[in-house]
């Protein structure tokens, strides 16, 4: 049972295939996840490096409260220089590895270097006895589910896994990093955005196996206060509306109403197939096919993840989320959630971001390269990716690459990353987030679903959301728990038996953004590079284009005075 005073970090040198354990710097104690990743990359990664070369640094960092008894707090951040955006990137995910690393007292894994043999594959084993790099050539190009089934046989039942699918091994820039969930240890959770799977693949790292053995939860410094916080927070949540009890897929009809269930490469904001893509249909299927809502990590009280079965009652995928139903569904004019479930599984198998992949396929369709709504054609296309066809590789490299491959003009993106479901034309403050976030177009960086804002409110609403989400993504709490800055600083205070002020927590969020912006600037990216692409400036949805001027956008880079609502605002992504 590690406690905060015993924290360690792992350094991995993939050039020589060695791994060592060091003490975790005490001054970083309140940094985890995204903020810790930004700090390490700022200090140890050359921003001008080739993202797929030996000088990039891959960071795997659980949140500050991960591994404790705090509810829904086991998120893990994957960080590095993105091969998709050319800037810094953090993508986080649930599953078990974050909890397991922290139960072992491991605050972060920092992976550097690259094997001289690009065909060699390695695994990293982490357990109570230490850490070591092992040969993994036998797992080369295995899809994620087959890989994990094999790893289940090689490691104890208590182990969880972080894996790189074939897309990552092929260094495709839409590649994700997978983690295994709690029930069946399936690789169904993904740190999806920004192509960090390609960074993992470029280092020859096929998997990380984390076995906590009999390690217990982390001991807070003030156990009584921490325990009371856990109890009160859980009770309040469970007595509240529990809006994610049926998962994010239940958002489909509301998004359609708000003109952000984008259709046919975002030329429209509403889909005629809203009823058949609605997550309610998935919940209804539980009765006849099996499947259920579940928690992807131990200690989660949100349970937003659906386990989806096929018509024969067999497991198909988990979780089928709103973003996937939109990008691989309505945006490609696919009408059936069951077809989207198939494609979600294929993306999980290959290790691909469903948002980037859906955006790319919609561009192929818009260019005439595939019929709208051709689900069978999409399945064939996805299965081509690890066969290495030119078309498959273009899709695997994302929207901008597919735009180049097809020569098509309509390529919605920001900083080289395709736009998530939430559209910046009806939701302009979210568009400000896409333009200014160091992450590029990423709704989890600061989602503002408020079409009633005036232009003078965009920057504060986006900045507030970006700060709250940056802190949340550093804490280990899931955004769907919707913790506020006050909630998070109270947990930190009890964990370390020290007071964490509002000013401190506000500063932490802002500092994270500043570290990331500085990295991007040093990488050669400008504020203008982040502006939304032409398609979003010229093609309207519901009569609206994205037209927020640069002088408004640039106000984001000044820290605004904290308004009272900052500390009660809920994380939302």
């Amino acid at each position, binding site marked *: 049972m590690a406690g905060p005073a015993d924290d360690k970090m792992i350094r991995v040198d993939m050039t020589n295939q060695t791994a060592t354990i060091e003490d975790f710097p005490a001054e970083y104690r309140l940094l985890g996840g995204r903020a810790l990743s930004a700090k390490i990359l700022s200090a140890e990664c050359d921003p001008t490096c080739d993202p797929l070369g030996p000088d990039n640094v891959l960071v795997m960092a659980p949140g500050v409260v991960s591994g404790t008894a705090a509810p829904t707090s086991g998120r893990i951040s994957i960080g590095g220089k993105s091969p998709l955006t050319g800037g810094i990137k953090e993508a986080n995910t649930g599953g078990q590895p974050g909890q397991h690393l922290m139960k072992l007292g491991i605050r972060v894994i920092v992976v550097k270097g690259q094997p001289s043999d690009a065909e060699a594959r390695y695994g990293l084993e982490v357990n109570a006895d230490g850490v070591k790099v092992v040969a993994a050539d036998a797992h080369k190009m295995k899809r994620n589910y087959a890989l994990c089934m094999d790893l289940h046989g090689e490691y104890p039942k208590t182990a969880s896994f972080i894996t790189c699918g074939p897309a990552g091994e092929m260094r495709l820039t839409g590649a994700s990093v997978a983690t295994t969930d709690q029930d069946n240890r399936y690789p169904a959770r993904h740190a999806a955005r920004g192509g960090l799977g390609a960074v993992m693949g470029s280092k020859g790292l096929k998997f990380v196996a984390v076995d906590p053995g009999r390690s217990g939860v982390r001991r807070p410094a003030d156990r009584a206060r921490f325990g009371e916080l856990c109890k009160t927070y859980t009770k309040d949540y469970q007595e509240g509306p529990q809006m994610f009890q049926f998962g994010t897929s239940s958002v489909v009809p*509301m998004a359609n109403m*708000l003109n952000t269930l984008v259709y046919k490469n975002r030329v429209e904001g509403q889909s005629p197939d809203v009823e058949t893509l609605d997550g309610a249909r998935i919940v209804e299927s539980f009765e006849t096919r099996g499947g259920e809502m579940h928690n992807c990590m131990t200690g989660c009280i949100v349970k937003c993840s659906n386990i989806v079965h096929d018509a024969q009652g067999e497991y198909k995928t988990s979780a089928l989320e709103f*973003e996937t139903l939109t990008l691989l569904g309505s945006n490609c004019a696919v009408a059936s959630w069951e077809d989207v479930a198939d494609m979600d599984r294929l993306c999980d198998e290959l290790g691909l971001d469903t948002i980037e992949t859906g955006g790319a396929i919609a561009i192929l369709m818009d260019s005439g390269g595939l019929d709208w709504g051709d689900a069978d054609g999409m399945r064939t296309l996805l299965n081509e990716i690890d066969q290495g066809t030119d078309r498959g590789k273009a899709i695997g490299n994302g929207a901008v690459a597919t735009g180049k491959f097809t020569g098509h003009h309509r390529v919605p993106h920001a900083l080289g990353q395709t736009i998530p479901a939430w559209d910046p034309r009806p939701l302009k403050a979210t568009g400000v987030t896409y333009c200014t976030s160091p992450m590029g177009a990423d709704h989890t960086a600061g989602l503002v679903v408020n079409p009633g804002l005036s232009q003078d409110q965009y920057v504060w609403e986006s900045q507030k959301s970006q700060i709250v989400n940056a802190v949340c993504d550093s804490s280990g709490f899931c955004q769907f728990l919707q913790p506020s800055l006050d909630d998070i600083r109270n947990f930190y205070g009890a964990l370390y038996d020290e007071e964490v002020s509002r000013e401190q927590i506000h500063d932490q969020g802002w500092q994270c953004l500043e570290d990331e912006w500085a990295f991007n600037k040093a990488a050669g990216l400008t504020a203008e590079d982040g502006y939304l692409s032409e398609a979003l400036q010229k093609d309207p949805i519901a009569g609206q284009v994205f037209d927020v001027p640069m002088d408004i956008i640039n106000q984001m880079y000044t820290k605004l005075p904290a308004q009272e609502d900052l500390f009660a605002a809920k994380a939302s992504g």
Partner: protein
Amino acid sequence: MPIIQIPPPYRGPTGGASEVDVDGATLLECLQGVEAKYPGFGPLVLDAKGGLRKFATWFRNGDKLTGDVLSTPLEPGDAIDIISSVAGG
């Protein structure tokens, strides 16, 4: 008058207004009043058959409403909250 608290996703028709005072003896009458004042609000909360859309949870003075929610009687000063989920995943 009862007060209808408008959550951020529904503030397009209200032009950003976060709460609306409106006359009405029931929730349905109040929602019709909001629609009269801010056209376009009604379809956000009511479906084509006039029933409540399913993706919101309704509260009166902090208490969750169940059953025939639209027929809920309201008194002057009652506060109605609409809680709806927005997330990407």
